[in-house]
Protein backbone atom coordinates (compact mmCIF):
# COMPACT_ATOMS: atom_id res chain seq x y z
CA UNK A 1 0.00 0.00 0.00
CA UNK A 2 2.82 2.34 0.92
CA UNK A 3 6.28 1.71 -0.37
CA UNK A 4 9.37 3.75 0.25
CA UNK A 5 12.34 2.86 -1.91
CA UNK A 6 15.76 4.20 -0.93
CA UNK A 7 14.32 7.48 0.23
CA UNK A 8 16.77 10.13 1.37
CA UNK A 9 16.10 13.67 2.46
CA UNK A 10 18.69 16.32 3.11
CA UNK A 11 17.85 19.72 4.51
CA UNK A 12 20.24 22.40 3.42
CA UNK A 13 20.70 25.56 5.37
CA UNK A 14 23.33 28.22 4.81
CA UNK A 15 25.96 26.67 7.00
CA UNK A 16 25.24 23.01 7.04
CA UNK A 17 23.53 20.03 5.54
CA UNK A 18 21.32 17.92 7.71
CA UNK A 19 20.59 14.41 6.54
CA UNK A 20 17.14 13.65 7.94
CA UNK A 21 16.57 10.43 6.02
CA UNK A 22 19.35 8.22 4.76
CA UNK A 23 18.34 5.53 2.29
CA UNK A 24 15.14 4.43 3.96
CA UNK A 25 13.12 1.60 2.47
CA UNK A 26 9.98 0.17 3.92
CA UNK A 27 6.75 -1.35 2.87
CA UNK A 28 3.39 -1.05 4.56
CA UNK A 29 0.89 -3.69 3.54
CA UNK A 30 -2.76 -3.04 2.89
CA UNK A 31 -4.84 -3.18 6.05
CA UNK A 32 -2.02 -3.21 8.55
CA UNK A 33 -0.96 -0.77 11.22
CA UNK A 34 2.70 0.01 10.82
CA UNK A 35 4.56 1.91 13.49
CA UNK A 36 7.81 3.81 13.24
CA UNK A 37 9.51 4.49 16.54
CA UNK A 38 12.56 6.56 17.31
CA UNK A 39 13.87 9.27 19.56
CA UNK A 40 13.32 12.87 18.57
CA UNK A 41 15.60 13.84 15.72
CA UNK A 42 15.71 10.30 14.37
CA UNK A 43 13.97 11.42 11.19
CA UNK A 44 10.65 9.71 11.71
CA UNK A 45 8.62 12.89 11.26
CA UNK A 46 10.39 13.58 7.97
CA UNK A 47 9.68 10.02 6.96
CA UNK A 48 5.93 10.25 7.45
CA UNK A 49 5.84 13.65 5.79
CA UNK A 50 7.55 12.18 2.73
CA UNK A 51 4.69 9.75 2.30
CA UNK A 52 2.30 12.52 1.23
CA UNK A 53 5.06 14.73 -0.15
CA UNK A 54 4.61 17.45 2.48
CA UNK A 55 8.33 16.93 2.38
CA UNK A 56 9.75 16.12 -1.01
CA UNK A 57 12.44 13.45 -0.81
CA UNK A 58 15.86 14.43 -2.14
CA UNK A 59 16.09 11.01 -3.77
CA UNK A 60 14.26 7.72 -3.85
CA UNK A 61 10.70 6.75 -4.62
CA UNK A 62 7.48 7.02 -2.67
CA UNK A 63 4.76 4.75 -3.98
CA UNK A 64 1.30 4.90 -2.51
CA UNK A 65 -1.41 2.64 -3.83
CA UNK A 66 0.77 1.65 -6.76
CA UNK A 67 1.42 5.22 -7.87
CA UNK A 68 4.75 7.00 -7.70
CA UNK A 69 4.20 10.39 -6.07
CA UNK A 70 7.42 11.76 -7.53
CA UNK A 71 6.13 11.32 -11.09
CA UNK A 72 2.92 13.25 -10.52
CA UNK A 73 1.83 16.67 -11.69
CA UNK A 74 0.59 19.15 -9.10
CA UNK A 75 -3.00 18.19 -9.94
CA UNK A 76 -2.35 14.46 -9.65
CA UNK A 77 -0.52 14.92 -6.38
CA UNK A 78 -3.48 16.86 -5.01
CA UNK A 79 -5.83 14.05 -5.99
CA UNK A 80 -3.48 11.46 -4.49
CA UNK A 81 -3.32 13.40 -1.24
CA UNK A 82 -7.08 13.27 -0.91
CA UNK A 83 -6.65 9.53 -0.60
CA UNK A 84 -4.06 9.88 2.16
CA UNK A 85 -5.44 11.19 5.44
CA UNK A 86 -3.15 12.69 8.02
CA UNK A 87 -3.42 13.54 11.70
CA UNK A 88 -0.96 15.58 13.69
CA UNK A 89 0.36 16.07 17.19
CA UNK A 90 -1.04 19.61 17.23
CA UNK A 91 -4.48 18.60 15.83
CA UNK A 92 -4.35 21.52 13.34
CA UNK A 93 -8.00 22.50 13.39
CA UNK A 94 -9.41 25.86 12.36
CA UNK A 95 -9.84 27.83 15.57
CA UNK A 96 -12.47 30.08 14.01
CA UNK A 97 -14.71 27.28 12.79
CA UNK A 98 -17.09 24.96 14.60
CA UNK A 99 -16.46 21.23 14.79
CA UNK A 100 -18.99 20.77 11.99
CA UNK A 101 -17.30 23.35 9.75
CA UNK A 102 -13.87 21.96 10.51
CA UNK A 103 -14.96 18.81 8.72
CA UNK A 104 -17.30 20.41 6.20
CA UNK A 105 -14.95 23.12 4.87
CA UNK A 106 -12.25 20.74 3.57
CA UNK A 107 -14.98 18.57 2.02
CA UNK A 108 -16.38 21.59 0.24
CA UNK A 109 -12.92 22.64 -0.92
CA UNK A 110 -12.18 19.22 -2.34
CA UNK A 111 -15.34 19.38 -4.39
CA UNK A 112 -17.69 17.11 -2.47
CA UNK A 113 -21.27 17.94 -3.55
CA UNK A 114 -23.15 20.03 -0.98
CA UNK A 115 -25.85 17.42 -0.40
CA UNK A 116 -23.29 14.79 0.63
CA UNK A 117 -21.35 17.01 3.00
CA UNK A 118 -23.85 17.01 5.86
CA UNK A 119 -24.27 13.26 5.62
CA UNK A 120 -20.51 12.65 5.71
CA UNK A 121 -19.82 15.05 8.55
CA UNK A 122 -22.50 13.40 10.67
CA UNK A 123 -21.38 9.91 9.81
CA UNK A 124 -17.77 10.47 10.79
CA UNK A 125 -18.56 12.55 13.85
CA UNK A 126 -20.63 9.59 15.02
CA UNK A 127 -17.72 7.22 14.41
CA UNK A 128 -15.41 9.31 16.58
CA UNK A 129 -18.15 9.76 19.16
CA UNK A 130 -18.61 13.52 18.96
CA UNK A 131 -22.07 13.88 17.43
CA UNK A 132 -23.13 16.18 20.26
CA UNK A 133 -20.25 18.63 19.71
CA UNK A 134 -21.14 19.78 16.20
CA UNK A 135 -21.72 23.42 17.07
CA UNK A 136 -18.80 23.76 19.45
CA UNK A 137 -15.53 25.58 18.70
CA UNK A 138 -12.23 23.71 19.10
CA UNK A 139 -11.12 25.86 22.03
CA UNK A 140 -13.98 24.45 24.07
CA UNK A 141 -12.79 20.88 23.51
CA UNK A 142 -10.23 18.79 25.36
CA UNK A 143 -7.09 17.58 23.61
CA UNK A 144 -8.54 14.13 23.04
CA UNK A 145 -11.72 15.56 21.59
CA UNK A 146 -9.74 17.82 19.26
CA UNK A 147 -7.83 14.82 18.00
CA UNK A 148 -11.14 13.02 17.43
CA UNK A 149 -12.33 15.93 15.31
CA UNK A 150 -9.06 15.79 13.37
CA UNK A 151 -9.56 12.06 12.86
CA UNK A 152 -13.13 12.61 11.67
CA UNK A 153 -11.84 15.29 9.29
CA UNK A 154 -9.27 12.88 7.87
CA UNK A 155 -11.79 10.02 7.59
CA UNK A 156 -14.44 12.16 5.91
CA UNK A 157 -12.36 12.09 2.71
CA UNK A 158 -12.58 8.31 2.89
CA UNK A 159 -8.87 7.72 2.42
CA UNK A 160 -7.28 4.33 2.07
CA UNK A 161 -4.28 5.35 4.11
CA UNK A 162 -4.02 7.31 7.33
CA UNK A 163 -0.74 8.87 8.42
CA UNK A 164 -0.35 9.73 12.06
CA UNK A 165 2.42 12.14 13.03
CA UNK A 166 2.79 11.72 16.81
CA UNK A 167 -0.99 12.00 17.13
CA UNK A 168 -1.05 10.95 20.76
CA UNK A 169 2.12 12.63 21.97
CA UNK A 170 0.34 15.67 23.36
CA UNK A 171 -2.26 13.63 25.21
CA UNK A 172 -2.39 12.15 28.69
CA UNK A 173 -2.11 8.35 29.04
CA UNK A 174 -5.80 7.69 29.40
CA UNK A 175 -6.73 9.85 26.41
CA UNK A 176 -3.88 8.27 24.44
CA UNK A 177 -5.43 4.86 25.03
CA UNK A 178 -8.85 5.98 23.89
CA UNK A 179 -7.41 7.52 20.71
CA UNK A 180 -5.42 4.32 20.06
CA UNK A 181 -8.56 2.24 20.45
CA UNK A 182 -10.25 4.53 17.98
CA UNK A 183 -7.42 4.07 15.47
CA UNK A 184 -7.63 0.32 15.91
CA UNK A 185 -11.38 0.46 15.32
CA UNK A 186 -10.89 2.53 12.17
CA UNK A 187 -8.32 0.05 10.95
CA UNK A 188 -10.52 -2.97 11.58
CA UNK A 189 -13.91 -1.63 10.62
CA UNK A 190 -13.05 0.67 7.73
CA UNK A 191 -10.00 -1.27 6.56
CA UNK A 192 -7.81 1.82 6.51
CA UNK A 193 -4.07 1.20 6.40
CA UNK A 194 -2.30 3.20 9.11
CA UNK A 195 1.30 4.39 9.20
CA UNK A 196 2.07 6.04 12.50
CA UNK A 197 5.15 7.46 14.08
CA UNK A 198 5.72 7.78 17.77
CA UNK A 199 8.37 7.84 20.45
CA UNK A 200 6.26 5.77 22.83
CA UNK A 201 6.68 2.01 22.81
CA UNK A 202 3.27 1.78 24.42
CA UNK A 203 1.66 2.98 21.18
CA UNK A 204 3.50 0.36 19.14
CA UNK A 205 2.60 -2.35 21.59
CA UNK A 206 -1.05 -1.53 21.70
CA UNK A 207 -2.03 -1.30 18.05
CA UNK A 208 0.82 -1.99 15.64
CA UNK A 209 1.30 -5.14 13.58
CA UNK A 210 4.76 -4.26 12.44
CA UNK A 211 7.30 -1.75 13.59
CA UNK A 212 10.42 -0.05 12.31
CA UNK A 213 12.98 1.46 14.66
CA UNK A 214 14.70 4.58 13.42
CA UNK A 215 17.95 6.17 14.42
CA UNK A 216 20.01 8.87 12.71
CA UNK A 217 17.79 8.92 9.65
CA UNK A 218 17.98 5.18 9.09
CA UNK A 219 15.79 2.22 9.85
CA UNK A 220 17.94 0.09 12.09
CA UNK A 221 15.50 -2.73 12.63
CA UNK A 222 12.06 -3.68 11.45
CA UNK A 223 9.71 -6.58 11.75
CA UNK A 224 6.62 -7.89 13.49
CA UNK A 225 6.10 -6.26 16.86
CA UNK A 226 6.35 -9.58 18.67
CA UNK A 227 9.71 -10.38 17.06
CA UNK A 228 11.11 -6.99 17.92
CA UNK A 229 9.93 -7.47 21.49
CA UNK A 230 11.41 -10.90 21.88
CA UNK A 231 14.59 -10.52 19.86
CA UNK A 232 15.64 -6.92 19.81
CA UNK A 233 18.90 -6.88 17.88
CA UNK A 234 19.92 -3.32 18.32
CA UNK A 235 20.71 -1.41 21.53
CA UNK A 236 18.22 1.33 20.73
CA UNK A 237 15.54 -1.24 20.07
CA UNK A 238 16.38 -2.91 23.36
CA UNK A 239 16.03 0.40 25.13
CA UNK A 240 12.59 0.92 23.66
CA UNK A 241 11.51 -2.57 24.60
CA UNK A 242 12.80 -2.26 28.12
CA UNK A 243 11.00 1.07 28.48
CA UNK A 244 7.89 -1.07 28.75
CA UNK A 245 9.48 -3.27 31.40
CA UNK A 246 11.12 -1.12 34.01
CA UNK A 247 13.40 -3.65 35.65
CA UNK A 248 16.26 -1.78 37.16
CA UNK A 249 17.47 -4.19 39.75
CA UNK A 250 20.22 -2.69 41.89
CA UNK A 251 23.68 -4.02 40.97
CA UNK A 252 24.43 -4.84 44.62
CA UNK A 253 21.53 -7.25 44.70
CA UNK A 254 22.52 -8.87 41.42
CA UNK A 255 26.15 -9.41 42.46
CA UNK A 256 25.06 -10.79 45.80
CA UNK A 257 22.51 -13.19 44.33
CA UNK A 258 24.72 -14.40 41.50
CA UNK A 259 26.88 -16.16 44.05
CA UNK A 260 23.99 -18.46 44.91
CA UNK A 261 22.68 -19.24 41.45
CA UNK A 262 21.85 -17.69 38.08
CA UNK A 263 19.62 -14.73 37.53
CA UNK A 264 17.54 -15.36 34.45
CA UNK A 265 15.24 -13.44 32.28
CA UNK A 266 12.21 -15.35 31.06
CA UNK A 267 10.27 -14.16 28.08
CA UNK A 268 6.81 -15.55 27.53
CA UNK A 269 4.96 -15.12 24.30
CA UNK A 270 1.41 -16.04 23.46
CA UNK A 271 0.10 -19.19 25.15
CA UNK A 272 3.21 -19.66 27.29
CA UNK A 273 2.46 -16.34 28.95
CA UNK A 274 -0.38 -17.72 30.96
CA UNK A 275 1.24 -20.93 32.20
CA UNK A 276 2.47 -21.11 35.77
CA UNK A 277 5.92 -22.15 34.50
CA UNK A 278 7.89 -20.82 37.38
CA UNK A 279 5.89 -22.45 40.12
CA UNK A 280 6.15 -25.79 38.28
CA UNK A 281 9.92 -25.44 38.49
CA UNK A 282 10.18 -25.52 42.26
CA UNK A 283 7.86 -28.52 42.33
CA UNK A 284 9.75 -30.61 39.82
CA UNK A 285 13.31 -29.68 40.66
CA UNK A 286 15.18 -29.15 43.85
CA UNK A 287 15.51 -25.41 43.53
CA UNK A 288 14.04 -22.23 44.94
CA UNK A 289 12.90 -19.43 42.73
CA UNK A 290 12.69 -15.82 43.67
CA UNK A 291 11.01 -13.27 41.39
CA UNK A 292 12.93 -10.02 41.15
CA UNK A 293 10.75 -8.21 38.70
CA UNK A 294 8.14 -9.06 36.18
CA UNK A 295 5.50 -7.73 33.92
CA UNK A 296 3.09 -8.94 31.35
CA UNK A 297 1.69 -6.75 28.61
CA UNK A 298 -0.95 -7.24 26.00
CA UNK A 299 0.39 -6.79 22.51
CA UNK A 300 -2.11 -6.20 19.75
CA UNK A 301 -2.78 -9.93 19.23
CA UNK A 302 -1.14 -11.77 22.07
CA UNK A 303 0.15 -11.39 25.57
CA UNK A 304 3.84 -10.94 26.13
CA UNK A 305 5.53 -11.30 29.49
CA UNK A 306 8.96 -10.77 30.93
CA UNK A 307 10.11 -12.06 34.25
CA UNK A 308 13.44 -11.73 35.99
CA UNK A 309 13.99 -14.40 38.58
CA UNK A 310 16.74 -15.80 40.69
CA UNK A 311 17.19 -19.55 40.88
CA UNK A 312 18.85 -20.91 43.93
CA UNK A 313 20.05 -24.50 43.93
CA UNK A 314 22.74 -26.92 42.78
CA UNK A 315 24.13 -26.32 39.29
CA UNK A 316 22.81 -29.63 37.98
CA UNK A 317 19.31 -28.89 39.18
CA UNK A 318 19.23 -25.33 37.86
CA UNK A 319 20.43 -26.45 34.43
CA UNK A 320 17.69 -29.04 34.30
CA UNK A 321 15.16 -26.45 35.33
CA UNK A 322 16.25 -24.06 32.60
CA UNK A 323 16.02 -26.79 29.99
CA UNK A 324 12.56 -27.61 31.19
CA UNK A 325 11.53 -23.96 30.74
CA UNK A 326 12.90 -23.90 27.22
CA UNK A 327 10.89 -26.97 26.38
CA UNK A 328 7.81 -25.13 27.55
CA UNK A 329 8.39 -22.47 24.90
CA UNK A 330 9.76 -19.91 27.28
CA UNK A 331 12.80 -17.95 26.21
CA UNK A 332 15.49 -18.00 28.82
CA UNK A 333 18.51 -15.77 29.02
CA UNK A 334 20.91 -15.09 31.83
CA UNK A 335 21.12 -11.57 33.25
CA UNK A 336 24.63 -10.29 33.74
CA UNK A 337 25.19 -7.59 36.25
CA UNK A 338 26.34 -5.16 33.62
CA UNK A 339 23.02 -5.48 31.85
Amino acid sequence: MIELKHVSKTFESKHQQVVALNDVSLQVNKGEIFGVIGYSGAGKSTLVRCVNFLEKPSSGQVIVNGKDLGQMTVEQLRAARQNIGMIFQGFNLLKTATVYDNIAIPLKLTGVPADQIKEKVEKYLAIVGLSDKKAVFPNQLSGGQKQRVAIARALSHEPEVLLSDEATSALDPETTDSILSLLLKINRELGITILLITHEMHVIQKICDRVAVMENGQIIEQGHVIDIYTHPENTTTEKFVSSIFPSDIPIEIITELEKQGPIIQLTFVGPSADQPALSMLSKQFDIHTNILSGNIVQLKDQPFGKLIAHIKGAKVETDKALNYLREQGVQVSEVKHNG
Partner: protein
Amino acid sequence: MANFNEVFDRWGGLIWESTLATFQMVTISLLISIIIGLPLGILLVITRPNKSFDNKYLYRTLNIFINVIRSIPFIILLFALLPFTRLVVGTSMGVRGVIVPLVVYTAPYIARLMESALLEVDKGVLEAYEAMGIKTKDIIWHVMVREARPSIILGITIAVIGLIGATAMAGLVGAGGLGDVAYRFGHLRYEPEVMYVTIIILVIIIQVIQTIGNILASRAKKD
Protein backbone atom coordinates in the same frame (compact mmCIF):
# COMPACT_ATOMS: atom_id res chain seq x y z
CA MET B 1 -16.00 80.33 27.56
CA ALA B 2 -19.16 80.74 25.58
CA ASN B 3 -21.99 78.40 26.43
CA PHE B 4 -22.71 75.30 24.48
CA ASN B 5 -25.76 76.56 22.59
CA GLU B 6 -23.94 79.58 21.33
CA VAL B 7 -21.05 77.48 20.04
CA PHE B 8 -23.48 75.00 18.54
CA ASP B 9 -25.50 77.65 16.72
CA ARG B 10 -22.45 79.33 15.33
CA TRP B 11 -20.32 76.34 14.41
CA GLY B 12 -22.65 73.35 14.44
CA GLY B 13 -23.28 73.34 10.70
CA LEU B 14 -19.64 73.67 9.81
CA ILE B 15 -18.53 70.97 12.25
CA TRP B 16 -21.22 68.59 11.06
CA GLU B 17 -20.20 69.08 7.46
CA SER B 18 -16.55 68.58 8.34
CA THR B 19 -17.34 65.42 10.26
CA LEU B 20 -19.13 64.08 7.21
CA ALA B 21 -16.22 65.08 5.01
CA THR B 22 -13.83 63.23 7.32
CA PHE B 23 -16.03 60.14 7.25
CA GLN B 24 -16.26 60.33 3.50
CA MET B 25 -12.51 60.56 3.04
CA VAL B 26 -11.83 57.81 5.55
CA THR B 27 -14.41 55.39 4.17
CA ILE B 28 -13.46 55.74 0.52
CA SER B 29 -9.71 55.62 1.04
CA LEU B 30 -10.03 52.80 3.58
CA LEU B 31 -11.96 50.60 1.16
CA ILE B 32 -9.52 51.19 -1.67
CA SER B 33 -6.56 50.70 0.70
CA ILE B 34 -7.92 47.34 1.89
CA ILE B 35 -8.50 46.23 -1.69
CA ILE B 36 -4.85 47.03 -2.42
CA GLY B 37 -3.32 46.31 0.99
CA LEU B 38 -4.78 42.89 1.74
CA PRO B 39 -3.50 41.24 -1.46
CA LEU B 40 -0.14 42.95 -0.93
CA GLY B 41 -0.05 41.56 2.62
CA ILE B 42 -0.86 38.10 1.27
CA LEU B 43 1.88 38.46 -1.35
CA LEU B 44 4.35 39.47 1.34
CA VAL B 45 3.54 36.29 3.22
CA ILE B 46 3.42 33.76 0.40
CA THR B 47 6.48 35.00 -1.49
CA ARG B 48 8.64 34.71 1.62
CA PRO B 49 11.46 32.18 1.48
CA ASN B 50 10.14 28.63 2.00
CA LYS B 51 6.51 29.64 1.57
CA SER B 52 4.09 28.40 -1.09
CA PHE B 53 5.08 30.93 -3.76
CA ASP B 54 8.64 31.51 -2.65
CA ASN B 55 9.93 34.34 -4.82
CA LYS B 56 12.96 36.15 -3.51
CA TYR B 57 12.88 38.98 -6.05
CA LEU B 58 9.21 39.82 -5.77
CA TYR B 59 9.39 39.61 -1.99
CA ARG B 60 12.41 41.91 -1.74
CA THR B 61 11.07 44.42 -4.27
CA LEU B 62 7.75 44.60 -2.48
CA ASN B 63 9.45 44.91 0.86
CA ILE B 64 11.63 47.81 -0.22
CA PHE B 65 8.81 49.52 -2.10
CA ILE B 66 6.55 49.44 0.95
CA ASN B 67 9.32 50.67 3.21
CA VAL B 68 10.09 53.57 0.90
CA ILE B 69 6.50 54.77 0.85
CA ARG B 70 6.16 54.28 4.56
CA SER B 71 9.22 56.44 5.18
CA ILE B 72 7.51 59.53 3.79
CA PRO B 73 5.38 61.59 6.20
CA PHE B 74 1.86 62.13 4.89
CA ILE B 75 2.15 65.88 4.60
CA ILE B 76 5.12 65.50 2.26
CA LEU B 77 3.54 62.64 0.36
CA LEU B 78 0.50 64.83 -0.20
CA PHE B 79 2.60 67.41 -2.09
CA ALA B 80 5.02 65.01 -3.69
CA LEU B 81 2.12 63.14 -5.26
CA LEU B 82 0.38 66.21 -6.72
CA PRO B 83 1.23 65.44 -10.37
CA PHE B 84 0.41 61.77 -9.91
CA THR B 85 -2.91 62.62 -8.27
CA ARG B 86 -3.80 64.93 -11.12
CA LEU B 87 -2.96 62.18 -13.56
CA VAL B 88 -5.11 59.59 -11.80
CA VAL B 89 -8.23 61.53 -10.83
CA GLY B 90 -7.87 64.67 -12.94
CA THR B 91 -7.61 67.03 -10.00
CA SER B 92 -5.42 67.45 -6.99
CA MET B 93 -7.94 69.44 -5.00
CA GLY B 94 -10.90 68.56 -2.78
CA VAL B 95 -11.95 65.18 -1.47
CA ARG B 96 -11.21 63.53 -4.80
CA GLY B 97 -7.74 64.98 -4.79
CA VAL B 98 -6.93 63.78 -1.34
CA ILE B 99 -8.11 60.19 -1.78
CA VAL B 100 -5.09 59.31 -3.93
CA PRO B 101 -2.43 60.36 -1.40
CA LEU B 102 -4.48 58.86 1.44
CA VAL B 103 -4.58 55.52 -0.35
CA VAL B 104 -0.90 55.65 -1.24
CA TYR B 105 -0.22 56.37 2.42
CA THR B 106 -2.57 53.78 3.92
CA ALA B 107 -2.40 50.79 1.55
CA PRO B 108 1.25 49.92 2.36
CA TYR B 109 0.48 50.38 6.04
CA ILE B 110 -2.43 47.97 5.75
CA ALA B 111 -0.22 45.60 3.77
CA ARG B 112 2.20 45.48 6.73
CA LEU B 113 -0.62 45.00 9.24
CA MET B 114 -2.11 42.22 7.12
CA GLU B 115 1.30 40.63 6.75
CA SER B 116 1.80 40.41 10.49
CA ALA B 117 -1.77 39.19 11.00
CA LEU B 118 -1.34 36.44 8.40
CA LEU B 119 2.02 35.37 9.76
CA GLU B 120 0.38 34.59 13.08
CA VAL B 121 -1.70 31.82 11.53
CA ASP B 122 -0.62 28.39 12.75
CA LYS B 123 1.61 26.79 10.14
CA GLY B 124 0.30 23.37 11.11
CA VAL B 125 -3.24 24.17 9.99
CA LEU B 126 -2.00 25.31 6.58
CA GLU B 127 -0.03 22.10 6.33
CA ALA B 128 -3.04 19.99 7.29
CA TYR B 129 -4.98 21.55 4.43
CA GLU B 130 -2.10 21.03 2.04
CA ALA B 131 -2.05 17.39 3.10
CA MET B 132 -5.75 17.10 2.30
CA GLY B 133 -5.01 18.03 -1.31
CA ILE B 134 -6.61 21.47 -1.20
CA LYS B 135 -5.63 24.14 -3.71
CA THR B 136 -3.20 26.80 -2.52
CA LYS B 137 -5.56 29.64 -3.41
CA ASP B 138 -8.28 28.02 -1.30
CA ILE B 139 -5.85 27.56 1.56
CA ILE B 140 -4.90 31.24 1.38
CA TRP B 141 -8.48 32.41 1.44
CA HIS B 142 -10.33 29.78 3.48
CA VAL B 143 -7.65 29.03 6.00
CA MET B 144 -5.05 31.77 6.21
CA VAL B 145 -7.28 34.83 5.83
CA ARG B 146 -10.10 33.18 7.75
CA GLU B 147 -7.96 32.27 10.73
CA ALA B 148 -6.30 35.68 10.72
CA ARG B 149 -9.63 37.52 10.86
CA PRO B 150 -9.35 38.68 14.48
CA SER B 151 -5.91 40.19 13.86
CA ILE B 152 -7.02 41.55 10.49
CA ILE B 153 -9.89 43.38 12.17
CA LEU B 154 -7.59 44.83 14.83
CA GLY B 155 -5.11 45.82 12.12
CA ILE B 156 -7.79 47.61 10.12
CA THR B 157 -8.89 49.40 13.28
CA ILE B 158 -5.36 50.68 13.74
CA ALA B 159 -5.26 51.72 10.07
CA VAL B 160 -8.57 53.62 10.34
CA ILE B 161 -7.27 55.60 13.30
CA GLY B 162 -4.08 56.42 11.43
CA LEU B 163 -6.16 57.40 8.43
CA ILE B 164 -8.28 59.81 10.49
CA GLY B 165 -5.06 61.40 11.68
CA ALA B 166 -3.87 61.79 8.10
CA THR B 167 -7.14 63.43 6.97
CA ALA B 168 -6.33 66.34 9.29
CA MET B 169 -3.88 67.43 6.61
CA ALA B 170 -6.47 67.14 3.85
CA GLY B 171 -7.47 70.74 4.39
CA LEU B 172 -4.20 71.76 2.75
CA VAL B 173 -5.62 70.70 -0.61
CA GLY B 174 -9.07 72.01 0.20
CA ALA B 175 -10.71 68.73 1.09
CA GLY B 176 -12.04 69.99 4.43
CA GLY B 177 -12.66 67.69 7.32
CA LEU B 178 -12.43 68.01 11.08
CA GLY B 179 -8.70 68.59 11.23
CA ASP B 180 -9.02 71.40 8.74
CA VAL B 181 -11.71 73.10 10.83
CA ALA B 182 -9.65 72.81 13.97
CA TYR B 183 -6.63 74.30 12.21
CA ARG B 184 -8.25 77.07 10.24
CA PHE B 185 -10.82 78.25 12.74
CA GLY B 186 -9.35 77.04 15.99
CA HIS B 187 -5.75 77.96 15.33
CA LEU B 188 -5.51 80.57 12.58
CA ARG B 189 -8.63 82.52 13.59
CA TYR B 190 -8.13 81.84 17.25
CA GLU B 191 -11.50 80.38 18.14
CA PRO B 192 -10.49 77.94 20.89
CA GLU B 193 -14.05 76.58 21.26
CA VAL B 194 -13.93 75.20 17.74
CA MET B 195 -10.61 73.54 18.45
CA TYR B 196 -11.91 71.96 21.66
CA VAL B 197 -15.15 70.79 20.10
CA THR B 198 -13.31 69.12 17.18
CA ILE B 199 -10.85 67.53 19.58
CA ILE B 200 -13.73 66.14 21.64
CA ILE B 201 -15.45 64.83 18.52
CA LEU B 202 -12.23 63.19 17.34
CA VAL B 203 -11.64 61.62 20.74
CA ILE B 204 -15.16 60.20 20.74
CA ILE B 205 -14.84 58.88 17.17
CA ILE B 206 -11.54 57.15 17.95
CA GLN B 207 -12.90 55.62 21.16
CA VAL B 208 -15.94 54.30 19.35
CA ILE B 209 -13.90 52.87 16.47
CA GLN B 210 -11.40 51.17 18.75
CA THR B 211 -14.19 49.71 20.89
CA ILE B 212 -16.07 48.40 17.86
CA GLY B 213 -12.80 46.96 16.50
CA ASN B 214 -12.08 45.19 19.78
CA ILE B 215 -15.59 43.75 20.00
CA LEU B 216 -15.57 42.52 16.40
CA ALA B 217 -12.12 40.99 16.83
CA SER B 218 -13.01 39.13 19.99
CA ARG B 219 -16.21 37.87 18.35
CA ALA B 220 -14.21 36.59 15.41
CA LYS B 221 -11.84 34.84 17.77
CA LYS B 222 -14.36 32.27 19.04
CA ASP B 223 -12.86 31.39 22.36
